[in-house]
């Protein structure tokens, strides 16, 4: 993988993907169309079932029908529920209308993925399908990807390990590794669609080749526009956005922050070449400063 080159000259293709050569597969992803989501959470359940994700407690939040709250190590699909006094279609006069927005959130499988860039062990890698996956036998739980992700997707699993537990001499039971959506890498390998898309009863979650999904999304946006839907917008569809386009993008009915998504995410490593140069200058100044201060004083 030539990550340095990708860093200096970001390409349209996912970082690291080109390394597969002949074994490269078509880039696949999700188009999550929230305008047809009914909040059934079949995706959450199917994801947990297929990927054997452990139960991590149930908390009553009082936040509409959402007791899952966020994506984390033990939740790779999360359905958000937003209740608004606003009509679904047309402006309304503010006195009528109630809409209930639902959105099934997931890892975005970014074209330029900060988690993959900052991972110090190479545990996070780009698959032949252009997706981003954690290798659980490599991850040492350093946690760097957790604050690096602009969407807050990755998290460390703090509950007891269900597979591959830490050695007894450490006296720890906690899993301690980072987990996230794999876009069902195992299912893709077997020629199946991911579990969440398979389970979705309304085709809110659509799986397929990314290029095809983008065309489908454009058509859907045009249709909703024609019908006058409030706030319809695609999120993460443009390959020229701050992360080079999402592998899993969305059709939203309000601004991203309403769903707990960042309005203009940028891959942090975009600024890394500048940061390294700056650090070298600081290191040089430290070397020179300490030496000069020490030598000058000693001559007196």
């Amino acid at each position, binding site marked *: 993988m030539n*990550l*340095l080159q*990708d*860093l200096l000259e970001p390409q349209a293709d996912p970082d690291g993907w080109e390394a597969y050569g002949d074994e490269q597969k078509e880039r696949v992803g999700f188009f999550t169309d929230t305008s047809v989501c009914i909040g059934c959470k079949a995706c959450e359940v199917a994801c947990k079932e297929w990927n054997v994700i452990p139960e991590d407690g149930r908390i009553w939040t009082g936040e*509409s029908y959402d007791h899952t709250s*966020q994506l984390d190590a033990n939740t790779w699909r999360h359905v958000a529920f*937003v*209740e*608004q006094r606003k009509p679904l279609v047309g402006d309304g006069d503010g*006195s009528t209308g109630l809409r209930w927005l639902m959105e099934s959130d997931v890892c975005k499988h970014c074209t330029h993925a*900060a988690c993959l*860039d*900052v991972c*110090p*062990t190479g545990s996070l890698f780009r698959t032949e399908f252009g997706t981003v996956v954690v290798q659980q036998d*490599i*991850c*040492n*739980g*350093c946690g*760097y990807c957790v*604050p*690096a*992700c602009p969407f*807050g997707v990755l998290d*460390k699993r703090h509950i007891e390990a269900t597979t591959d537990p*830490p050695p007894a001499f450490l006296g720890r039971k906690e899993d301690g590794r980072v987990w996230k959506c794999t876009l069902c890498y195992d299912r893709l390998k077997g020629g199946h669609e991911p579990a969440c898309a398979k389970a979705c009863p309304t085709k809110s979650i659509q799986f397929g080749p990314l290029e095809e999904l983008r065309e489908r999304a454009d058509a859907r946006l045009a249709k909703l526009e024609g019908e006058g839907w409030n706030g319809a*917008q*695609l*999120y993460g569809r443009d390959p*020229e*956005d*701050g992360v080079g386009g999402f592998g899993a993008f969305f059709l939203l009915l309000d*601004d*991203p*922050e*309403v769903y*707990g998504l*960042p*309005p*203009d995410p940028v891959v*942090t490593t975009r*600024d890394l070449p*500048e*940061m390294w140069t*700056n*650090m*070298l200058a*600081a*290191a*040089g100044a*430290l*070397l020179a*400063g300490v*030496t000069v*201060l*020490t*030598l000058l*004083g*000693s001559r007196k």
Partner: protein
Amino acid sequence: MTEPFRLDGKPSITAVGSEMRSYYGRPIVKEPVWTWEIPTYFFTGGLAGASAVLSSAARLAGNRKLARRALYIGAVADLVSPMLLVSDLGRPERFHHMFRVVKVTSPMNLGSWVLLVSGGASTTAALLQLLDRWKPIRIAASIVSTLAGPPLATYTGVLVADTAIPVWHEGRHELPWIFGASAAASAGAAASMFVPPREAGPARRLAVAGVLAEGALVQAMELRLGKIGEVYHQGEAGKLSWAAKGLSVAGAALLARRGHKSRAAAVVGGALVCAGELSLRWAVFKAGFQSARDPKYVVESQRRRIEQDGTKATTRPAS
């Protein structure tokens, strides 16, 4: 319009929801999962890196006592550092996975390599100094640790800046410089504690200069951060920032005024500066958590960027 009914009389979620520009006030980016070992390592790593440089510079200046003591201080800090880092890992037994790859896009990966080189070199040099043997090897090891020291002391600034945490990422221009100045201050302060006042002149000067430079750099960073930087004046980060300033300035003043006469003053002054530098690393660490916890920092900084440059994250209908 009638408000939806609620037993407790508070506005219902439905009513609040129409105004809400966040998802129930929940964070957008995740707080780091790093624990106390990490800010402590930022201090010990900085101390190790700058002490290696101080040791070699003192040797060039013919100040053998300062050179030796700074070498030992740096070696001890270099030994403690990897223990802290391994202890923080979710899977400590896999610490060596850090060395599976060399990866320029990961400050933690390159930092691990720098620490390996710096730690190996400085402990070798210190051991040979103690044994008083194999001088050429000792000198070679000293040179290596001197060159690895400044990157070790400053890369941690890039490590935190290379994240999605607003207060860290937007502080990327100053953080490596602040950490470098803080490292210089702590190396000077630690040497002032362990070297007799007569030979510790350069160390005291370094401590004072480091504290002054760091004060100016922190101000510069806060100016640039604007509203995002308010976390440095709130909560735990706010208290730690005050502690950092108070302790380091008091210690530097004591070193400057009394450090050349009294060993006791040098020890107390040096300890105060070290405590101040440790507090500074903790202030930066905690500020990151506070910045992640409130979604307004992510939303407001990105909205401001959108107002200036537009965005391609969202695609709206053509009309």
